[in-house]
């Protein structure tokens, strides 16, 4: 078995995951980032996106929104606003959120509002994408 490292994923409302993993793949600002045991210390921010980690030879997926990761050679911590498993995602709610955001995008907004709507749309799309991909 490959060398493992300790991973903790903490969302604002709960401890999402804590345990030994072999491999972690995250979406960083500028692309995908793979982390294995013994990675160099690193701090980076995570935009809304997908997350996967390898536990006992099995890939687990999660939808994550806005957070950051601190990587150390023997452990990593991810702190995020929300983190959900594909099967936990409320598709209906995400769809509604997407429609709401799209509706707002069509209206005139200030720059700040525009960014907020864009972020909301991103979150909704990300949720829908991940639940469609991994949970049928």
């Amino acid at each position, binding site marked *: 078995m490959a060398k493992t490292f300790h991973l*903790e994923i*903490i*969302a*604002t*409302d*709960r*401890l999402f995951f804590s345990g030994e993993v072999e491999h972690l793949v995250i979406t*960083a*600002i*500028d692309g995908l*980032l793979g982390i294995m045991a013994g990675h*160099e*210390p*690193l*701090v*980076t*921010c995570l935009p809304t996106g997908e997350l996967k980690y390898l536990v006992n030879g099995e890939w687990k997926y999660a939808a994550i929104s*806005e*957070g*950051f990761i*601190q*990587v*150390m050679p023997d*452990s990593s*911590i991810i*702190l995020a*606003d*929300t983190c959900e498993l594909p099967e936990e995602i409320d598709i209906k709610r995400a769809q509604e959120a997407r429609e709401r955001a799209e509706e707002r995008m069509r209206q005139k907004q200030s720059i700040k509002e525009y960014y907020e709507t864009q972020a909301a749309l991103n979150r909704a799309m990300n949720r829908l994408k991940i639940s469609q991909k991994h949970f049928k």
Partner: protein
Amino acid sequence: MPNMREIRERIGSIQQILKITNAMYLMSSSKLKKARKSLECTEPYFYKLQSTIESVLEHTPHTRQLYFDRRADIPEDKRKKGYIVITADKGLCGSYNHNILKYTDKKLDEAADLDNCYLFVMGQVGRMYYQRRINSNKKASVDGEFLYTTQNPTLYRASEVAELVLDKFEKRELDEVYLIYTDMINSNLQEPKTLRLLPFERKHFGKAADGTMKKLPKASFMPSPEEVMNYLIPQYAKGIIYGAMVEAFCCEQQSRMTAMDAATTSAKDMIKDLSLLYNRARQAAITQEITEVCGGAQSINE
């Protein structure tokens, strides 16, 4: 001796109020349970957030960072201070509101110049209190647009508040930002507390309560330390505000529960006293009637 009808009416009205206080007691206790749960769920996040930021900061190269700007160019008493005050939306929660407002008043008195104080009040009670104060010319301006309730704190609301103050700080409309909220020490003891939000200080990130802190050997930042900091600090501010909101909400429910419990007990006591008084009055009336009848009968006999 008060008359019987009056006492009966009084008992009736106390019984009505007892029903209300009892219902409020039950409601706040169920809300408290919910609030406690969310507090427990968010705590690990905050401790981790604090300790992580602490260790990240230790290794940040000394960059000129926007949110660490101490505003050294402005004299101490000319700095614009912002206060985010978290109060309740409703009264009837014992001394909860009173305590936090008195504490804020004290803080404002300490501030050198009230014209440079800006209040961001969450919760109806506090907002009303400070708006009334503006009218009476003891000024510290209250942001009228800042309309947030304290019921059921959400991360979304916290992020809006954080964005607002960070934005004002960036535009130099505020030089210092403090957060005033009620901290729950244990279930019987609550205390108003101030937390300095901005500008950030390195020592500000104290050790996390659980004492976990891992030394991070020189870390690299992706894409760049500034970028990461620009992203982390708002995240941190949001987290802190959310934590304070949850904590304050928990305190509010706790003190409302205690207050309503006390009100229910004293209503019960009052009813007990009054029914004693009522029975006495009733007996006195009967005795009087008998005496009158006897007196009447005797006078006929004579």
